[in-house]
């Protein structure tokens, strides 16, 4: 991919990555948004949405609190949507590869969040005395430093991820040996099972809403049968 093609994707990744924790947490970092937008930039929003839905199902299993290490879905969603649309939805294996690439990005991006927090921590220690003296410059400066670093993090990460993943994904899809129907159903089914299992656990521990979940399931299966 050329730099001109990569640039808008990387910028989108920067914005979605920044949204995940730093600003404005409006959940444009959710994969259903990021992947759709990533797909749209590469020419197909519906294809981006399909990746977004699969990742969103997986993201239901992770909640942004409590864990010291969690996947960062902002850059990952954008990467997944862009890779899928770039490789082409009709090629067997393209969905599996796009979701795979996206999950790897989410994992690496999660680690980059830890590095970012350490970097901000080091900067905070360096200006500690000024902050303790109530310096407006130091307080505002630290905030701006963190926001800028996070934006740069998302930009670089998405740039690298998409630049590496698109040729890799094209190569993989070229030698893909499973039928499209099977590989798509396997990926989507896997995500559905993860979401279902996680939600069931969530609604049956500590609350008594499990029966509502089951009632919903009956309705849901009914809707599917009618469709």
């Amino acid at each position, binding site marked *: 991919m050329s730099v001109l093609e990569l640039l808008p994707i990387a910028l989108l990744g920067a914005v979605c990555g920044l949204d995940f924790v*730093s*600003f*404005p947490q*409006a*959940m444009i970092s959710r994969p*259903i*948004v990021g992947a*759709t937008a990533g797909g749209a930039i590469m020419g197909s929003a519906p294809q981006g*949405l399909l990746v977004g*839905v*699969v990742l*969103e*199902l*997986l993201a*239901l*299993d*992770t909640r*942004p*609190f409590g864990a010291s290490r*969690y996947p960062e879905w902002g850059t990952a969603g954008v990467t997944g949507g862009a890779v899928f649309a770039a490789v082409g939805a009709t090629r067997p294996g393209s969905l*599996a590869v796009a979701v*795979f690439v996206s*999950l790897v990005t989410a994992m690496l991006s999660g680690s980059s969040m830890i590095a970012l927090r*350490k970097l901000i*921590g080091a900067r*905070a*220690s360096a200006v500690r005395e000024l902050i303790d003296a*109530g*310096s*407006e410059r130091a*307080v*505002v400066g*630290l*905030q*701006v430093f963190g*926001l800028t670093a996070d934006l740069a993090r998302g930009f670089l990460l998405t740039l690298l991820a998409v630049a590496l993943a698109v040729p890799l994904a094209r190569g993989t899809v070229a030698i*893909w040996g499973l039928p499209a*129907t099977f590989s798509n*159903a396997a990926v*989507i*089914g*896997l*995500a*559905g*099972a*993860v979401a*279902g*299992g*996680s*939600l*069931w*656990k*969530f*609604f049956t521990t500590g609350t008594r809403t499990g029966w*509502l*979940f089951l009632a*919903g399931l009956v309705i*849901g299966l009914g*809707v*599917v049968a009618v469709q």
Partner: protein
Amino acid sequence: MTRIHVPFLTRLVMWLRLFAVQGSWNYEILLGNGIGFCAEPALRLLPGGRGGDQYRRALARQSRYFNAHPYLASVAVGALTRAELEGVNPAKIERFRTALAGPLGSVGDRLVWSGWLPLCSLVALLAYGLGGTAGAVVALFLLTYNAGHVALRAWGLKVGFSRGTEVAKSLGSPILRRAPEWIDRAGALLAGIAVPTAVERAVGIGGEASAASIGAVLVGGVVLARIPNTSVGWRLALGILSLIVLYAVLV
């Protein structure tokens, strides 16, 4: 108690800054510096003004370690700012700050991270499952979610300002206390409907293959639900997916 007046423009700037309250999140002071950053515009109203002695001491106090849910940090910013402007004694402000952090985190985690966010995500998945277009699904998600998000930040700052150190009473409002429970119920019902419909449309082939994948999802879901830890599902998915990719490339 002295009446404090914070001009509208100052409040607006504070509200806008609140969206970046986690901008310098780190393991040492968490979002502490963000609280100072958001409170700063109002601290300029202290006697001595911007850069004055009181201003500097208050800003330093507010920029220390703090942890809370980012949206409900707005309550803390409002209440702590008011306490500073009222000249509440620093030792009490420190204790108030400490006591405020945990409950705001807890309320926010229940209300937003394990309530409103998954609910809105499920609404979007259901919209997809029922045939929504890319634009419609994304717009529905962002508008629904942010109606709650933006309002919560504004509400927090407002009650923080109006109640100051008495803010616990507002947090104890029945609506806020009961909302997580209602959201849980709606989420549970919606989850059951949204997951199979979304999976069905995503697989998109209809007939027996579709039924087989839904069946596989149900069986897989039951198996995965037996794993006690949370947040292992996506890692497991990554592992299985690696095997699928490897197999598909080698056959």
